[in-house]
C-alpha cells in the first residue's frame, strides 16, 4: 500500500493510542514511541506495529505512537485506520484484512 500523506487515528484518552503514519523518505521503518509503559511493553508495541504494517504491505514509513496503555487490538485498529487514511483509501479490502 502506498502512503501518500500523513494519516492519524486514535485519541490520547486512557486505554487508547494515537498513531500518525507518514512517508519515510529515508526508506525503512521508523517507530517513535511515547508510552508510560514503554519499559514493560515497548518491545511488544513495536512488534504489533511491525506485524500490522507487514500485513498491510506498508514499507518505508515513519510511525509516531502516543500510547495510553492500549491493548494490542486497539493498537492494530488505530494503526490500520491511520494507514488507510494516509493512503487515501476508502474502499477496504476486507478479505485481505482478515
Amino acid at each position, binding site marked *: 500500500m502506498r502512503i501518500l500523506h500523513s494519516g492519524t487515528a486514535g485519541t490520547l484518552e486512557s*486505554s487508547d493510542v494515537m498513531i500518525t503514519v507518514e512517508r519515510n523518505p529515508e526508506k525503512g521503518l521508523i517507530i517513535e514511541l511515547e508510552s508510560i509503559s514503554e519499559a514493560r511493553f515497548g518491545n511488544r508495541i513495536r512488534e504489533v506495529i511491525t506485524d500490522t504494517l507487514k500485513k498491510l504491505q506498508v514499507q518505508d514509513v515513519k510511525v509516531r505512537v502516543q500510547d495510553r496503555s492500549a*491493548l494490542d*487490538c*486497539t493498537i492494530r*485498529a*488505530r494503526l490500520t*485506520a491511520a494507514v488507510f487514511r494516509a493512503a487515501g483509501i476508502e474502499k*477496504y479490502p*476486507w478479505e485481505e484484512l482478515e
Partner: protein
Amino acid sequence: MKLRRTMLYVPGNSAAMVKDAHIYRPDTVMFDLEDSVSYREKDAARFLVYQTLRTLDYEGVETAVRINGLDTPYGRDDIEAMVRARPNIIRIPKTEKAQDVTDVETEIERVERKIGLPIGTIKLFAAIETPLGVLNAREIACSSNRLLGIALGAEDLVTSLRTSRSKDGIELHYARSQVLYAARIAGINAIDTVYSNVQDEEGFIAEVRLIKQLGFDGKSVIQPNQIKLVHRVYTPTEEEIHKALRVLAAIREAESKGSGVIALDGRMVDKPIVERARWTIELAKASGVVPEEVKL
C-alpha cells in the same frame, strides 16, 4: 431463557468503553457505529470494534453492533466488517419497513457465504424510530427468522411527532403499544428506548416500572449505573416467586390426581395464571434468585 433486560450502548470509537463495557454485566453490550460516532471517525470506530470483537472475550455477555443504515456510505462496510467480527447481533437503525430488514439480511448472508460462516449465524435487532416504522412495526417484526427483537428509539420519533419526551411518556404511549404488540405477534423481544436524563434516577426507575408493566422485555441504556436499576425492577419479588411456586405445585398435584379443575386458596387457577407463574419463575431463574433445578 436469554434475558435482554438491558442493552448497554457503547460509543464505538471509545477504546476504554469498547474494552470494558461487559464488566458492568448488562444482558447485552451494544457497540454503536451510528449516532455516537462522528462522520470523520466512522472508519476508526469500525476498525476498533472489528479488532476488539475478534480479540476479546466478553465473558458470556451478549454482543451487538448498531450499524449505519444501508442508505449511508458506511452501512455496507459496517456489515462487511461486523459479520467477520461476529457479534451475536447486528442492530439495524431507523427501520421503516420489512424490506429494510431484508436488505440488511441479504448483505449479511452474502458475507456469511463468502467467509464460510453458517447462514443465519448473525442475528438481528431492528430499531423503530420513525412514525412510518411504528405503523409498520408488525411487518418489520415478522420480516426475518434472524430477528430476535425490535427496539423503540424515541428521540428521533418525538421530534418527527413535533413533541418532546415527558416524564410520564404520554407521547410514546401509541408507539410503545404498537412495538410491543408487534413483537408479541412475532414471538420476539420488545426493547424500550433510552432514558437520556442520567441525573434523574427516580424518573428512570418510574419509566422502567412503566415499561415492565406494559410488557417490555427490557430497555436500551446509556449509563452503566442504569443497569442494576433495571435488573432490580425486573427481578421478581419474594412474594411473586412464592405465589408462582404455589401455583405450579398446585398444577403438578392436580395433574398427578388427574384432576382437570385446579383451585388454590379457594380461587380457580386457569391457563393464563399458570403461564404467568411459569414466566415469573423463568425470570427469577434467569435473574439468579431461584435455582435452575426448580421445576416449572
